[in-house]
């Protein structure tokens, strides 16, 4: 069936550097999401994105975070600069409609050293 792919599965980066997490959503999906899960904690919503714009972002979506989907390619989450507390697994999800069950990727584990 359709899948949301996240690349890479694990990324290790030094504090202060920039990182871009890539998500390849299902091809006809229109709504895109990022979630963050710190080890041992609940999964938490970061941001959703539709029609080229951020629809809603949580308090976890700091000024250092940005999202985009240039030319219908990857949906990306960029963190610049990274901080130690950004270490977490980031999950991307997509759906065709806003009131439809989103399909989740397998996550990217980000380790900030």
């Amino acid at each position, binding site marked *: 069936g359709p899948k949301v792919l996240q690349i890479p599965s694990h990324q290790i980066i030094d504090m202060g550097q920039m990182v871009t997490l890539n998500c390849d959503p299902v091809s006809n999906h229109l*709504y895109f999401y990022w*979630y963050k899960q710190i080890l041992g904690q*609940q999964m938490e919503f970061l941001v959703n994105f539709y029609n080229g714009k951020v629809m809603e972002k949580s308090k976890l979506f700091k000024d250092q975070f940005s999202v985009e989907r240039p030319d219908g390619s990857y949906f990306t989450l960029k963190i610049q600069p990274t901080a130690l507390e950004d270490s977490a697994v980031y*999950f991307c999800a997509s*759906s065709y409609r806003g*009131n439809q*069950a989103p399909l989740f990727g*397998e*996550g990217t584990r980000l380790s900030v050293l």
Partner: protein
Amino acid sequence: GDQVEQSPSALSLHEGTGSALRCNFTTTMRAVQWFRKNSRGSLINLFYLASGTKENGRLKSAFDSKERYSTLHIRDAQLEDSGTYFCAASNYNQGKLIFGQGTKLSIKP
């Protein structure tokens, strides 16, 4: 803010038995989704409900928006059912999900 309270946090069952997981919501939710996280960390979608009940094999889920809860029933548990189960609810149509804390389910022979 809106909360999703999931219980129990851990559950151990013998093969062939069953039980139920529950999520309570502090506000009216529009829809609920149940997931199982497999050993690779992937979120496997089990159910999406806007109301009523759904059944799939040995799993059955119910959602009552007015009473602010959802349940996931497992019957005739098998070893491969082991894993962490999550509920997640949304309260409007833009799809933002609020996750429960998860239930770690262990099935024993």
